[in-house]
């Protein structure tokens, strides 16, 4: 319950970014952006990286490749302790299909992520175990992603640039679920490994 509230709370400032700042005399001139200015903002839920996760990212190569940083939150009630999850995500979207003047479909996005979880009850301390006691990390997860998105372009900031808001979903999994599957291919089904993320992406 608190999560949805937080989601909405975070969605409001993101939404306010959608209101274009009137550029009175920049008509015609492409919006110059410093390299460090993020090209998009993200807000999502699920995907194993937070009940709510917010982030920013960059896109390259005609917006086909994207790299994002997200910070996620899981409340104590849902995990036994309050978790903060920092995620790096890279994705590739080969095709963008214009549906109408304003709507655009990205049918396929493939990617990978790595996440680091802060706040685990038993993350493993130095000297807690003999060497190589557990072969896997408790804090670091990584896995593949696959998804789609649909974007609405409605806020022109200049003659050749518009802000857009995309809704996306991602199906993913993580290294430990994959390892479980690879050692139990008779009784686990690939669908049982899946996690779902849904989110909003504001292209600036």
């Amino acid at each position, binding site marked *: 319950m608190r999560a949805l509230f937080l989601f909405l709370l975070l969605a409001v400032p993101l939404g306010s970014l959608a209101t274009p700042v009137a550029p009175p005399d920049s008509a015609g001139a492409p919006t110059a952006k410093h390299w460090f200015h993020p090209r998009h903002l993200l807000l999502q*839920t699920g995907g194993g990286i937070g009940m709510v996760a917010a982030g920013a990212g960059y896109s390259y190569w005609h917006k086909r490749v994207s790299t994002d940083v997200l910070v996620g939150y899981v409340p104590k009630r849902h*995990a036994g302790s309050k978790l903060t*999850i920092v995620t790096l995500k890279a994705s590739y979207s080969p095709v963008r299909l214009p549906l109408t003047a304003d709507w655009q479909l990205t049918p396929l996005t493939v990617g990978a992520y790595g996440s680091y*979880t802060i706040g685990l*009850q*038993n993350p493993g301390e130095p000297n*807690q175990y003999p060497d190589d006691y557990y072969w896997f990390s408790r804090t670091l*997860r990584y896995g593949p992603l696959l998804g789609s998105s649909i974007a609405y372009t409605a806020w022109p900031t200049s003659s050749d640039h518009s802000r857009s808001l995309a809704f996306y979903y991602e199906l993913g999994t993580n290294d*430990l679920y994959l390892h479980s599957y690879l050692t139990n291919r008779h009784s686990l089904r690939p669908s049982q490994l899946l*996690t779902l993320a849904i989110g909003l992406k504001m292209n600036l």
Partner: protein
Amino acid sequence: MRSSSQHVRRVGGALVAGSWLMGCSLLESSPNQAYAPADEQYQTSRNLARLAAQPPSHHGDTVRFVLVGDSQRFYDETEDFVASVNQQPRIDFVAIAGDISDFGLGREMHWIHRRLQKLHVPYLTVIGNHDELGNGRAAYQKHFGPLNYSFVYQGTRFICLDTNGREYGFNGRVPDLEWLGQQLADTTGIARTVVISHVPPNDADFDPKLVQPYTQLLRRHPQVALHLGAHIHRFTAGQPFHDGLTYLTAYPLKKRRYHVLTLWGQRYFRLETISYAKVR
């Protein structure tokens, strides 16, 4: 007033819908989350209620149960294990002596439960070191229940307790000797006591500060008939502390072998070993 209460109701509805979405396992907040579907929560108390309701397999003071350890990430084998146990006649329950999961993740506990729930008899678990990784303790509590609990069946007190001291950095509080002492002292209507834990006290993962107080405490209670453990992934039986108390460690599930333990009288027990073939 009216509009504000309507508003509250609308927000409440949205929040309920939101929490349902959060709750569904696909939309996972973290693999370390402590979520279980409502009908899969608190298996320990559910199985204890089933055990209390079912007629005992034997007359008198005899109790007969299956012992196995370390189901961790052996889902193929768990299915075969369940098929084999379901063929055994006159079993009261199945005891899994810890390491239900491999990574301490709730989804693993869900996967194991989905297989163990096909057992014809109740199953009971004790927490293992792998179940305590990350936020595994919280996930275990949600899926199964308390880390320390005891129950009485057929004149036998079974004490199931967390002995995974290393997972607490050997903080001197695990196993909880005060709680254990209280359980051991309660002998009303009890012919014998059986202790089930994951890490046995003669293992390096048991809090070294507590080995002596733990074994002394058990020694002071002559009704303790057996100490059952797992963790070391092989069957052992002996009296490592030379005090007349038998310590036994179970086969791990992946060995496709398990024990059937029959207890009667104060300290009599019979140990049968069952091997089962790979079904596929």
